[in-house]
């Protein structure tokens, strides 16, 4: 009918769908799922880096890291707000996260073992996020696209900070260089896995492409990321832990070893090193804060009642 024709026309014209516009149920559900997962990833993603705030090795790095983790909380808030425009409340989404019924990016189920991991997360994980997210700035759903523009700007700032951390370490003492290389060794394949399963196995991709939520396939984005990293790694003076990484003249791209997708599946299913820890941390913070949220609610109600009394 007409609503659907309008929707299709907007998508075809590469224009934006806005909250009040009609949209197919599948489109709405797909977006909710994706935006919620993205929001959850920002919130859970605060933990691995938050782990180093108290121990950051200089006051400047401490300030930068604290600001970064704060930005992630902010990104979470934008994204929940974007999801709310689709008619689902933030509380509902948070409950789904706490109940383990919605996912977040599996990369955050790996531990941050050293300070260099903060650098590696910035460089590789934020780097991969940006490659994933830049196309989302042109996503067909307006509120999501606009949130992504703001987020991508901050993410690229974060990525540069991570790169700088690694650069300083890689050009520092021998122990610092070892620390940096060790972090890259541990984060490289999980970062490649951030782009999801190979295109052949990707379930949601085709429909998302049609709807212009997604614009490139998992493998296209992964290749783009690899090509970007190879060059940067050589400036850093660090090795990417892939002996088969080499320039392919024909493809005009780097050949590389695929990440272990079986491991990715295990981690997604809950058996990564930190899945239980991340969920327990989030649940504990939520549970321990319950009395505070209840107090704020009770206070707001009392205040409203007082206002009404004054007005009456």
């Amino acid at each position, binding site marked *: 009918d007409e609503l659907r024709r309008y929707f299709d026309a907007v998508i075809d014209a590469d224009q934006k769908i806005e909250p009040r516009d009609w949209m197919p149920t599948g489109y709405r559900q797909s977006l909710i799922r994706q935006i919620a997962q993205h929001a959850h990833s920002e919130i859970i993603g605060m933990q691995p880096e938050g782990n180093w705030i108290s121990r950051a090795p200089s*006051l400047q790095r401490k300030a930068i890291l604290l600001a970064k983790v*704060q930005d992630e909380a902010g990104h979470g808030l934008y994204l929940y707000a974007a999801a709310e425009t689709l008619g689902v409340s933030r509380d509902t989404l948070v409950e789904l996260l706490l109940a383990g019924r919605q996912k977040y990016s599996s990369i955050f189920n790996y531990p941050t073992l050293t300070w260099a991991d903060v650098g590696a997360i910035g460089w590789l994980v934020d780097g991969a996020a940006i490659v994933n997210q830049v196309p989302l700035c042109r996503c067909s759903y307006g509120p999501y696209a606009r949130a992504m523009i703001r987020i991508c700007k901050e993410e690229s700032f974060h990525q540069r900070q991570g790169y700088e951390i690694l650069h300083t370490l890689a050009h520092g003492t021998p122990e*610092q260089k070892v620390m940096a290389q060790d972090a890259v060794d541990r984060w490289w394949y999980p970062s490649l896995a951030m782009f999801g399963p190979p295109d052949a196995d990707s379930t949601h991709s085709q429909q998302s492409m049609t709807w212009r939520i997604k614009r490139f396939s998992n493998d296209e984005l992964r290749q783009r990321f690899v090509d970007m990293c190879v060059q940067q790694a050589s400036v850093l003076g660090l090795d990417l832990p892939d002996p088969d990484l080499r320039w392919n003249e024909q493809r005009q791209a780097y050949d590389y070893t695929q990440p272990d997708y079986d491991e990715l599946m295990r981690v997604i299913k809950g058996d990564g090193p930190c899945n239980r820890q991340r969920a327990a941390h989030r649940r504990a913070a939520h549970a321990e804060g319950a009395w505070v949220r209840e107090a704020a609610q009770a206070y707001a109600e009392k205040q409203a009642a007082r206002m009404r009394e004054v007005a009456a």
Partner: protein
Amino acid sequence: MSTHLDRLLALGDDALVAAQRLGQWCTRSPEMEEDVALANIALDQLGAARLLLSYAGELEGAGRDEDALAYLRSDREFRNVLLVELADRDFAVMIAKLLFLAAYQRLRYQRLAAGEDARLAAIAAKAVKESAYHLDHAAMWTARLGDGTDVSHERMQAAVDEVWPYTHELFEDEPDLRLPWLSTVEDVLAGATVRRPADGWAPGGGRDGRHTEQLSYLLAEMQVLHRAHPGARW
């Protein structure tokens, strides 16, 4: 009498230790907005600490920069008041500490912003605005908790009772600030239906480096990485 350098270290250490405690709330606070707000306050405190410690290091003239002062002193050399180092047993204790600290820092920075030392005055002029925001934030939560549910009222009262004795030390150097401080704080507590504790026990010693047993644990964690790599750049 404390010297100008002592005063800078005292202010800087207050801010640094407060930032360290506040930073630990990030990912742990009762709501996401509060993660953002507390990180903001921690960043303000950290920013002030850096300016103050850098200045202190230059005044001292022994080649110590902000990091040398932050990472390479033991608890016996830290000059912060005990208030800021107390463990944040719960959200109410953290808010009580922030309320008392911010009300004090606002007055202290106000005075310093009008003082003779131009560099310190500039630092203080920035910090006084931040303190006003911290005070607002703490006052808002004191009201919400104090005048919220029965549970939150009890916890807020217990927190204020627990922290109150440590507020006396804030006024060791400038006792005349206590009166205006009391005026602010008593208003906030009254508005929050929280009883203002009686004065009595007044622990101190922080300005002379005699701290609680908690500070050395806080510093052990804060300094571990820096100390493990002597002379490294970060």
